[in-house]
């Protein structure tokens, strides 16, 4: 993956992640350094090329000498940092957070067009979620099929806001936003109207590609058929920011 041109006066720091000695530029975040070094850190809201959101809390890591946990996506590295990404405590927390997501809406994998290509599903498996201990919330959400090319199934939305950010920051349309608050939050287009009637959606489909689950998909796809392609994002992001 292409990197932005290295700015000469950015210092290089040394640190350890899970007892591995590493070096990194001081303007990098922990999650960026982990990804470069193939250290797996789960995340659902972070995406290279989009602004930091810090909402999914799956990338929380432990820093030696600090009592609280830090979100790897929102924390810059520093000289001498000693980071732990896979403690038993973190694993327990991550598992619970994923269970909370599964219980919040209807993620019925068996009948999802993203089945087998879903970041939530992968993470559930990686984090050992073989069942959900909290009760399912049983709230019904609508499916918006009004757009001629794409479909939005709120039941599968995890509110990561990748779609909101890509539409605003990369496409520049800001068709999407979030309405309401708390667990009543919902992704909306324009004045919470059907997507197909949006005045400013350009139908570019970036939101669909960055969506980690089967919430935003192409029309006409059947179970397991929706495969997402996000390779364009770092390229577009770099060119946008170079402007």
């Amino acid at each position, binding site marked *: 993956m292409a990197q932005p041109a290295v700015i000469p006066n950015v210092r290089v720091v040394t640190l350890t992640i899970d007892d591995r000695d590493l070096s990194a530029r001081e303007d990098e975040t922990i999650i960026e350094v982990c990804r470069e070094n193939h250290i797996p850190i789960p995340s659902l809201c972070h995406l290279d090329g989009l602004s930091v959101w810090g909402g999914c809390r799956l990338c929380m890591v432990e820093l030696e000498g600090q009592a609280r946990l830090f979100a790897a996506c929102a924390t810059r590295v520093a000289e001498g940092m000693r980071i732990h990404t896979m403690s038993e405590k973190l694993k327990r927390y991550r598992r619970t957070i994923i269970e909370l997501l*599964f219980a919040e809406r209807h993620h019925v*994998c068996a009948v999802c067009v993203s089945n*087998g290509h879903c970041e939530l599903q*992968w993470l559930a498996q990686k984090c050992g979620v*073989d069942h959900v201990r909290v009760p*399912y919330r049983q709230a*019904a959400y609508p499916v918006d099929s009004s757009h001629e090319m794409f479909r939005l199934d709120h039941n599968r939305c995890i509110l990561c806001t990748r779609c909101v950010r890509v539409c605003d920051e990369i496409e520049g349309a800001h068709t999407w936003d979030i309405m309401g608050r708390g667990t009543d939050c919902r992704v909306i287009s324009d004045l919470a109207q059907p997507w197909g009637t949006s005045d400013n959606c350009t139908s570019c489909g970036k939101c669909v590609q960055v969506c980690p689950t089967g919430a935003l998909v192409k029309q006409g796809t059947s179970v397991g058929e929706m495969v997402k392609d996000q390779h364009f994002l770092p390229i577009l992001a770099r060119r946008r920011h170079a402007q």
Partner: protein
Amino acid sequence: MNTKKITVATAWLDGCSGCHMSFLDLDQQLFDLIAQIDIVYSPLVDAKELPAMVDVGILEGSISSEDDLEKARLFRKHCKLLISLGDCAVTGNVPALRNQFKLTDVFNRAYYETATVQAQIPTRDVPALRVPVKPIHGEVAVDVFIPGCPPRAGAIGYVLTELLAGRVPDPSSVTRFGA
């Protein structure tokens, strides 16, 4: 090798029987298993009564009716170890999709709107439906979960083989929701 065979009971609650079919898909491996286990109660065999004590109980399907609940409780009571087999048992899956609707709407849809002859809601000899549909562990404690829709035959074989070997299986390495 155990001298006494491990006893196994299975049942399907609100499910499509696909998980049982997947179990049968073990093909050749079934013969190895049968040498070590004794299926004492199952839709696959003739036995009509659940024995007083069974080593392993396997439940497919979600708890959608009073009958399902009763059977799940029965299994919990009489099985030393209880396995939730497949997504319907583990998550509620497709049967739980009806939780989004009112029960009356579900009945109307099933027995009036789509009926071609004698539209009526059956009331006799059918178990009452429960609201909401729940996974097995929503009502009784479960020891091992095998997600999947259906879980692959190999995954079922792996879990049983591990249990027979006296190990605690970790199905998450070979299974996931929905597949």
